[in-house]
């Protein structure tokens, strides 16, 4: 029996159970609002949103893999494409574009024109340092950490290295701050080599 082909983002989006977009946006807004009230410091809220995103990401990856049937990506470039086209489509209903690759292929930007999290949102003057969508950066970071990837030869290591991807995700452009789109920079910072978990003690 031949292996099943990976499903496109649209196909999966059509088949999963969806929630009302406004409910989603307003619920997220309520979460951010509550965090601002509880923590007061905008930096703290940013960190907390990122942590929440991370906790979501480490679970989301399994749902993503189960529903989309993608096999392991050959390199980081393919990984970024899959996140932008299949991942975002499946969970948020929008696709992102991948741009701005650096020379080594370890850093790229994900650009979102349309972002359901920020509908109806305006940042007041008291919250100017807030990264409203920081949960998204946490989700990507968490999900990538759970997936191993083939480390390509360009980074100076042998092609056989199996590594887990530790990334840093930062916001470059933010529509709530007046830019024309949302742009996240995903940078592969550390490759933690995967080893056989049991030591050879017996």
């Amino acid at each position, binding site marked *: *029996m031949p292996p099943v082909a990976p499903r496109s983002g649209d196909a999966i989006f059509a088949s999963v159970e969806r929630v009302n977009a406004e409910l989603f946006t307003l619920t997220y807004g309520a979460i951010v609002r509550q965090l601002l009230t509880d923590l007061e410091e905008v930096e703290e809220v940013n960190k907390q949103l990122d942590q929440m995103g991370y906790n979501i990401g480490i679970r989301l990856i399994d749902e993503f*893999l*189960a529903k989309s049937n993608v096999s392991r990506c050959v390199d980081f470039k393919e990984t970024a494409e899959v996140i932008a086209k299949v991942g975002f489509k499946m969970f948020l209903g929008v696709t992102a574009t991948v741009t701005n690759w650096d020379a080594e292929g370890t850093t790229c930007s994900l650009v979102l024109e349309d972002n359901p999290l920020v509908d109806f949102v305006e940042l007041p003057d008291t919250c100017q340092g807030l990264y409203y969508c920081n949960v998204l950066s946490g989700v990507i970071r968490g999900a990538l950490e759970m997936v191993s990837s083939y480390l390509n030869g360009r980074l100076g290591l042998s092609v056989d290295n199996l590594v887990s991807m530790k990334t840093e995700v930062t916001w470059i452009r933010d529509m709530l701050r007046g830019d024309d789109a949302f742009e996240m920079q995903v940078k592969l910072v550390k490759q933690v080599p995967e080893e056989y978990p049991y030591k050879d003690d017996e």
Partner: protein
Amino acid sequence: MQFFGGSEISPSPPVPTAAGNNAHMLYVFNRNGVCLLYREWNRPLKTLSPQQDHKLMFGLLFSLKSLTAKMDPTSADKGNLGVPQLPGQGCSFHSFRTNTYKLSFMESPSGIKIILVTHPRTGDLRESLKYIYNLYVEYVVKNPLYSPGNPIRSDLFNSTLDQYVRGLG
């Protein structure tokens, strides 16, 4: 592996009836080797303690994955034996069969390994293992009270799994 088709020396067990459970046992491991779930429906012979059994099973699969990739006649690039292999990259094994049981295996890119041991006349279980992975996502991953990396303690998951496995051919 039957060399002589010999049924006198080591006969196969009878095919279970539809009423009984068709599977012997199920293991679920995560990428760190932690055994998240072990279900047993029909296992008359037990030789090792559970911890040793889990370690042995995990080690077996680790080695088998590496070995099957190295023996691949169609692949051009061969690394060192002992280096962990990526499933979906080149060849990945999915089952082996002996005269008394068949072991079916599936690994997700996130390192979740599902192993199902059934009677030897079972067909290809890859779709079933994918379905079990989906069940894992729905009942375990999406459960906010479950912490990833810990053994699964969910009655709902266990009973849904039992029901599904009972229906397998």
